[in-house]
């Protein structure tokens, strides 16, 4: 039984984790199958003033927005933007933060200590504030949002990995590997990294939720992808002047954000329990 199958099996026993997994999969599938499942794929970017602010029903499953475009389709396509931003931003943070944390934690040089102090500074400032500052300076676009989010999120990974590596260095099996003469790079890659993988994975999942929320906030403030891109945060922002009559306008993107963030958080919590090494089995009993 492969590791992945084992993880999925164990997750299935935890109801909230299962819910999280389902929510995440739903959003991912929606994003992938957007052209197939949306009702007005070509109208996402169109302006059709005759149909503006129609309530849900009939042709428009979730109503229309102020430009007359179908909200349901826009939300589905918006999933693509949201997930793209989140995956790339968190991915880049991982790629920057984990090696820094590994190197600083293992080598105990003053450079490592300094890097950790730098990341502390980043962690002390609220991510949203930093992201706003960066996005504002560089101008509203998807790329700049991704950049802002990566720059503000890598310290979380670096700090986490640093602390774990420092603790791991005192473990007997690491000392034994050193005494055995295994080269340091091999110890770090084959012994240390797998043992810090679980906290990294958990942090990645939770980080996705966090990043999506921040991206939506940026979009809400007008700092995200420019219109007419169907970005969820921006959609909520647009809906403000039409509330409370056009209640459907804010509901759909709001629920979408809620669902996907909740999904990633529940999944992350579930993974935290499942990935405990002491519970792995070579074969099912």
């Amino acid at each position, binding site marked *: 039984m492969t590791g992945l199958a084992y993880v999925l099996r164990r997750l299935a026993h935890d109801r909230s984790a299962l819910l999280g997994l389902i929510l995440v999969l739903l959003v991912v599938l929606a994003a992938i199958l957007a052209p197939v499942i949306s009702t007005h794929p070509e109208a996402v970017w169109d302006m059709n003033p005759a149909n503006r602010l129609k309530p849900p029903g009939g042709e428009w499953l979730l109503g229309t927005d102020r430009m007359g475009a179908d909200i349901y389709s826009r939300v589905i396509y918006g999933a693509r933007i949201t997930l793209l931003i989140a995956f790339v931003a968190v991915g880049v943070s991982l790629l920057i933060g984990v090696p820094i944390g590994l190197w600083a934690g293992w080598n105990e040089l003053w450079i490592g200590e300094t890097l950790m102090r730098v990341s502390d500074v980043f962690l002390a400032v609220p991510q949203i504030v930093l992201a706003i500052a960066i996005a504002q300076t560089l101008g509203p676009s998807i790329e700049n949002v991704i950049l802002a989010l990566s720059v503000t999120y890598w310290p979380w990974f670096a700090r986490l990995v640093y602390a774990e590596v420092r603790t791991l260095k005192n473990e*007997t099996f690491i*000392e*034994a590997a050193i005494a*055995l*003469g*295994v080269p340091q790079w*091999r110890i770090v890659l084959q012994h240390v990294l797998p043992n810090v993988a679980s906290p990294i994975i958990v942090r990645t999942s939770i980080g996705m939720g966090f990043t999506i929320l921040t991206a939506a906030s940026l979009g809400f403030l007008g700092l995200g992808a420019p219109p007419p891109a169907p970005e969820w945060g921006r959609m909520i922002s647009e809906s403000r002047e039409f509330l409370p009559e056009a209640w459907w306008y804010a509901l759909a993107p709001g629920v979408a954000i809620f669902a996907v963030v909740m999904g990633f958080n529940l999944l992350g919590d579930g993974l935290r329990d499942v990935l405990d*090494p002491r519970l792995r*089995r*070579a074969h099912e009993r």
Partner: protein
Amino acid sequence: MSAHATLLQVSELRRYFPVHNVLGLRTGTIKALDDVSFDVRLGETYGIVGESGCGKTTLGKTLAGIHKPSAGRILFEAADISGLQGAARGPVVQRLQYIHQDPGGALDPRWTIGRSLDEPLATHTTLSRVERAARSREILAAVGLPPGHLDLYPHELSGGQQRRVGLARILMLKPRLVILDEPTSGLDVSVQATVLKLLRKLQRAFDLTYVFISHDLSVVRIMCDRVAVMYLGRIVEIAPAAGLFAAPQHPYTRSLLSAIPRIGGKRVTDFFALEGEPPDAGNLPSGCRFRARCPLAAPVCAEREPRLAPVGENHATACHFPHKLEGART
């Protein structure tokens, strides 16, 4: 001297640890090892005994290359290995291995047993995968475990089985010298018996030479050929095991032996006379380190440190008055 081949020769080994205060300034030195010299012959089991703070663990780790000596030399198979650490130690590692107090702890919890056993061979030899697998099975059988265990994870084995796997891992490279650091410490009596028998069996099967570090004198007595007694970083007495226990020459060794409960004999606590505790390691007294607690202390003991000198066949002690204890047992 005898015609035995010398496998390990330690000369004037020193290992000092600096002591820092809160501000990071150096306030003193702990002389964990201070001028330690001895040699280990091929095929023997050489015991190193002492209480906490005597330096025996530091000695084991320094011989194993985990610590770097501050001074002195270590000759292994006539080659100087004193400062070698890390990659430079490669060829030495194959022939000189070190076992922690808990050998099972040396296993990565995320690796299967098979992979943990494979690692020493993959790192140091050029054997093919098939050959490595064959050797894994061979060594696993030697410690009494079935080949099916290769696919299990450490937490799926009992503590005793983990210990055996740890021992197997050390033997994968078929070393010549194995340093055992407190192999029976903390073990129940019945488990201890099993471990000692296994160690003996492995020694015969693989032609091993042991350096046996322990604070438990009764275990050392039955396992070791020769014994060195340490006190505060120095060796105070070296003798064959039987001779050491029958006629100890150093006052500390005498006290140490007299403290061991002897079931069936007189109660130790009725007669035990050693008072006080060892002095602070960072603040050693002048002259002999044991003089504050020694029944034979005299002015010369404060002036000059005694050196290890022979007092009989294969027997050496570091005391100014080695023969004065005849007949007077504490």
